[in-house]
């Protein structure tokens, strides 16, 4: 199980890439993170995998984690078979060439991976991640796969018994999956306020407010676009301070 507790991420003093995300992923209920470009999906996955340290919040994760990056690099000189054997050794498990075969790998396993097609490289990268035993963190796992391999991947993920966290742009169906949208919904406006205090309940009750949550000393309010001006005016009238407005 992986637990992300109110995590946020920013680089230096830059803008927040992720803010106040709470998420629990347990075995048997895959979580699909959705959202437009730049909403922080990959960043969330890198934090869950233990690559990136959140700037705020806490993460608890199991020991054995498998990570599939969004784009596995193309110029790798190691052959596929050596790569999988050595990385399985790093994890302390046996190499699983059967996973590669199940995904329908075509190519020379003893030639440099740079000579493989994108789809076949993706299959090697997936087989590497699927040898983990506790948590799978897969960033766009269907990218580059043909339909048959995509279906096999769904079965392999379900059979792994791991907690599963994936991103997906194309609406692939993982049985029993929970979808978690990141960022504002389509067309929504996110307003961050300071000095909210008692006014939070009144702001939450305004027309068009989708979500209003206390964050630190302030609040994060998501509102329908047509109601954002009225919300800002009301927030200022109530004595709140506007920290940011994003759409």
């Amino acid at each position, binding site marked *: 199980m992986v637990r992300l507790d109110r995590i946020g991420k920013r680089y230096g003093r830059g803008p927040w890439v992720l803010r106040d995300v709470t998420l629990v992923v347990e075995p048997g209920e895959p979580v699909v993170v959705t959202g437009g470009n730049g909403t922080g999906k990959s960043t969330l996955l*890198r934090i869950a995998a233990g690559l*990136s340290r959140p700037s705020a919040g806490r993460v608890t994760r199991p020991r054995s984690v498998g990570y*599939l990056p969004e784009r596995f*690099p193309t110029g790798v000189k190691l052959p596929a078979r050596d790569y999988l054997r050595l*990385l399985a050794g*790093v994890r302390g498990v046996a190499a699983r060439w059967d996973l590669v075969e199940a995904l329908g790998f075509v190519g020379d396993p003893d030639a440099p991976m740079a000579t493989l097609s994108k789809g076949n490289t993706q299959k090697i990268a997936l087989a590497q991640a699927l040898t983990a035993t506790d948590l799978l963190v897969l960033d766009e796992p269907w990218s580059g796969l043909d339909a048959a391999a995509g279906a096999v991947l769904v079965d392999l993920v379900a059979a792994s018994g791991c907690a599963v966290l994936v991103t997906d742009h194309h609406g692939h169906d993982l049985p029993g999956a929970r979808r978690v949208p990141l960022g504002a919904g389509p067309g929504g406006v996110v307003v961050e306020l300071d000095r909210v205090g008692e006014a939070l309940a009144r702001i939450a009750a305004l027309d068009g407010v989708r979500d209003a949550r206390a964050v630190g000393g302030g609040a994060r309010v998501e509102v329908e676009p047509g109601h954002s001006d009225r919300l800002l005016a009301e927030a200022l009238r109530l004595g709140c301070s506007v920290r940011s407005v994003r759409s």
Partner: protein
Amino acid sequence: MSYLVRYLLADVLRGQRFLPPLLVYGAVLAMFNAGDAGPPLSAYAGSCAFLYPAAVWLTVVIATSEDPVRRAVTVVAAGGWGRAQAAVTLLSCLAVTAVALAAAVVPPLVQPRPYPVAVVVLGFAALLVCGLTGVGVGVLCARPVITRHGWSALTAAALAVAAFLFGQVPPIGNVLGALGREHDLVPNLVVSGVCAVVLLVASTVVSRTLGPRRD
């Protein structure tokens, strides 16, 4: 950890970026030993001085052999930045130890003067101290501490030169000075050896701390 080191070694050997530092250092060794290199112990001073920048270069090559994305996969498989960065330091130390060993046995094989075993052992120790210092500096010049190639090269060059600017101070200057004088080498080696180990540990801790923050 042994698989992690083996994986990195296999990857480094498949790339060819490890060749330039080794070829340059080989050429320097050949140059020093082409004629009479001088009295046995002080003959090691030149190869020690050049092993330091060669070790920095070789360590940067080992630390950046994987591109950042594949590095991310390895870090997760290894169970975190700490183990992944420790493997970089360990493999660099092993590689530099092999180079130091080669540089220690070349003069007794090709020089006309007699080289007693004690002198070769001291020469190897001096080479090792200079090489391991280079590994510590190299880790600080490579990803994830410095992420851009240009800054990495500039910092490595600046730190390589800096070790020679301040005269006979540890960990490099005092060893070269003691080799030249053929006097007080052992105490200077002990001081510099401790400095090199502290630098190795500190640079590895810095890299494992900065890795998850930069990512």
